[in-house]
């Protein structure tokens, strides 16, 4: 990439995004008033981290060396701008949004295209919210309906899981996991009321699946208020559609027989259009709610830092305050004011909050976020990183599927924490996919290593897999092991496998 292009790319970013990292740092300083400065990641750590986060793979040794060749005072900015201009950025973040919103419940090509467009076109969070929650609106893009349509599908003979849909809207858009409040006020979170859950449910219960393949959603006419009672006192209550802690919306009463603006027509399979549809009301209410930007700022922060400023993001309530309140406000305000995701990410990754060094997770002097924590790689990122590290294509979809199967989380489990398992250990040890990658082919890592020996060879392995040189203890351990091997080829396989199967390769830190 030419320097002129890099310069142009850098200039193209709005003042807002440039300001954002400055604003985050200022807010962080306010939040950390009185605390000692925290350590910032070294260039190797930053280079690996930002590659994984922005383009979904580790850096190649050549890329690391090129990065280090730039002047120290602006090499990080140049790297970030290069990665944001890489076509892999849109794909990586479409996948990140997909995991964040669908939690591996399924996939859909138009949905992926929609998410890619959200990233590329710089849609504000408010617009994305409107499109996700009211996908039938005229002119709204195809694919956006998948968020609702997938959740409105039947599985086997089970009924549509409206409680899960209602919970997901509370969690993902408002930072409130109201699952316990389905049946009673939350026992330990005073702010999570049963009326909150039921108010959200009053929005969603009219929705039904249109066409699963087309990801379309239909609505029935509103059926009065939702009646509910706590399992503890059985006292009867009712509510209309309402966001938590907001007044129920005034929904015009519709006379029986006059529920539809466009009547259903069985002959043409037209489900009709109700006079009062609740999904548009929901979409607008959430889009206008201050909690939307705060929840997304917190969730996006969590996907970059491994923990939310409010942790866990589904439990944003006064009893669980943000660890960095000014910083969270800054991040949320940027989204609220319409900053595009790409610009927001640029501000974030250039901030000191993102660039904190990794290390023991116990906070130094109780300073929040004083150390970056380990974040396990998703199956997709891991597969891509292996390809980059070894210089060997994994190739067919079946192999990638295998990675998703072993390393992806099950449906409905957020891609957050890692979970070491025997299945993964056996995969690394014995799966043919891994074995075949350790064969030398012209130009790949095993081939390059065959031309090196001793410390240079060890450093090449470390740079290729972990994006950093080996320290002296590591170098000694590797050389000692190599000396015990039956042959040089076996020694190379042993070392590369040990690093591939190491925890450090499989995490972002």
């Amino acid at each position, binding site marked *: 990439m030419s320097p002129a292009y890099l310069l142009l790319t850098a200039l193209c970013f709005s003042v807002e995004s440039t300001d954002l990292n400055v604003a985050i740092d200022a807010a962080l300083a306010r939040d950390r008033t009185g605390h000692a400065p925290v350590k910032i990641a070294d260039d190797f750590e930053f280079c690996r981290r930002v590659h994984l986060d922005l383009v979904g793979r580790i850096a190649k040794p050549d890329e690391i060396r090129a990065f280090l060749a730039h002047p120290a005072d602006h090499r990080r900015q140049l790297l970030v701008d290069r990665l944001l201009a890489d076509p892999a950025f849109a794909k990586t973040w479409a996948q990140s949004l997909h995991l964040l919103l669908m939690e591996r419940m399924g996939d859909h090509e138009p949905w992926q295209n929609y998410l890619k467009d959200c990233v590329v076109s710089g849609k504000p969070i408010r617009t994305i919210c409107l499109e996700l929650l009211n996908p039938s609106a005229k002119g709204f893009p195809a694919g956006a309906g998948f968020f609702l349509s997938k959740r409105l599908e039947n599985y086997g003979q*089970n009924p549509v899981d409206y409680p899960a849909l209602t919970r997901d809207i509370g969690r993902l858009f408002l930072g409130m996991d109201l699952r316990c409040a389905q049946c009673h006020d939350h026992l330990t979170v005073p702010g999570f009321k049963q009326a909150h859950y039921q108010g959200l449910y009053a929005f969603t219960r009219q929705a039904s699946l249109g066409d699963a393949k087309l990801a379309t959603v239909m609505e029935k006419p509103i059926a009065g208020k939702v009646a509910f009672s706590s399992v503890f006192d059985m006292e009867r209550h009712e509510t209309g559609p309402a966001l938590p802690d907001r007044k129920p919306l005034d929904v015009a009463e519709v006379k029986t027989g006059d529920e539809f603006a466009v009547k259903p027509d069985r002959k043409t399979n037209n489900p009709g259009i109700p006079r009062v549809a609740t999904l548009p009301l929901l979409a607008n209410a959430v889009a206008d709610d201050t909690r939307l930007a705060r929840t997304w700022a917190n969730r996006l922060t969590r996907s970059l830092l491994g923990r939310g400023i409010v942790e866990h993001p589904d439990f944003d309530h006064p009893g669980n305050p943000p660890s960095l309140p000014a910083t969270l406000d800054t991040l949320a305000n940027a989204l609220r004011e319409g900053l595009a995701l790409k610009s927001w990410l640029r501000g974030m990754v250039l901030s000191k909050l993102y660039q904190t060094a990794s290390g023991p997770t116990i906070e130094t002097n109780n300073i929040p976020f004083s150390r970056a924590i380990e974040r396990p790689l998703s199956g997709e990122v891991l597969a891509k990183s292996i390809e980059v590290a070894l210089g060997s294509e994994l190739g067919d979809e079946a192999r990638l599927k295998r990675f998703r199967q072993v390393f992806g989380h099950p449906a409905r489990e957020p891609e957050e924490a890692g979970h070491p398992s025997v299945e993964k250990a056996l995969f690394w040890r014995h799966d043919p996919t891994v074995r075949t990658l350790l064969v030398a082919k012209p130009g790949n890592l095993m081939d390059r290593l065959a031309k090196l020996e001793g410390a240079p060879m060890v450093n090449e392995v470390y740079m290729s897999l972990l994006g950093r040189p080996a320290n002296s203890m590591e170098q000694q351990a590797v050389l000692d092991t190599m000396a015990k091997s039956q042959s040089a080829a076996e020694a190379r396989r042993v070392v590369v496998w040990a690093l591939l199967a*190491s925890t450090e390769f499989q995490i972002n830190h």
Partner: protein
Amino acid sequence: MNCGMQHSLSRRSWMSCMGAATASLARAAPSGGVSSDRQLLLVWLDGGLSQLESWDPKPGTRFGGPFRSIPSVVSGIRISELMPQTARHTNKLALIRNLCTQDNSHSAGVARIQRGDPKNRGVDYPYLNVASARWLGPKAVELPASMVIKPGNGGFLVNETGFLGPRHAALALGDGKPPALLDRPADLAAAEDDLRLSLRDTLDRMGATARGSSLALANTETFKLAETLRRRRDLFDPARLSRNDIERYGDTDLGRHLLQARGLLEAGVRSVKVISYGWDSHGDHFNGSMSLMPQFDRGLSALLDDLGNRGMLDHVLVVVLSEFGRTPRINGHLGRDHWPEAWSAAMAGAGIVPGQVVGETVADGSEVKGDSYDIGHLFHTIFYALGISTSAIHYEQSGQPLPLAHEGMYPIKALLRKPPENAR
């Protein structure tokens, strides 16, 4: 948030709770666990065992079908003539004939019955075998706490773990065979394998020190467990089952798997589930029963024989369960459909008063006569039989306590050797 607070049992934060995490992987008793020598064997007859062709026959009635009932070793207890060998073991069994549950579909019933259906909790509960292993912890240091033997594919059954998360997933032996990828590939020399494992371990330990990595420690534990499983492949190798034993249990999937279950229990696996498919007999039910029931009869009776002779019924609880029973009414395809309204289960072993029948159905078997029990009652009873007090212990999820079993139900007094005060 800390380990004891929100989501403490979900996977979301488990890695931040390193002590609990590594403990659960292989070694120490689980946090808040129960000290007990009890083990669980769940025999799951998927599709729905017909109560009329097994534990609650109604010969000579309009729905009774062609099979007779036969007397058993316990005076007054008659079971289907399709179970002549089990009839010699009713002195070890407690039969529950008054189950009345909610779901008549497989897709809802299989999960609901195995989760114990604590209603309206808004979360997915773990299956019985997983929940038992979670509270009792691994019995043998080197083996998984929970294992499943089933036809078809094996692997780690994460969908059974509910809110406990995948670290509690049972290891399933598909067709009784070892886990996938357990064997070292032929082109990988043992010396090379040992060398690379040793280097991986060394580098991870260095990383754990430098980064304070809890994940590295947990990874190392899983590599160790994988190696232990590889070395204990005798437990998973159907080829090592004795010919004589196979003959006694029956040379069928169910027979071999029950025999293998005995071995896993002896080795110290805390919770074993044997799954048998093919019990959903909507058509040609009676010919089907003549084929399936003898397999079940032979395997179960051999198992009860062995567990009894080896003194294992003192600490192993055997539960035979399906998602529902089958309709008394015989459909147009000479089949029986799904019937949760009145069906039966059987239990034997630890903590259970044997040689009895609890509950009854009306003359034609179409409904329960008198009091009925739902799956929640059975869960309370099973947990107590395993030494797990459902009134003293609860899950913690999202910062609030969740009962182990339906809080509106209670343990069945007649079934328990030491019934708690709230049993009825």
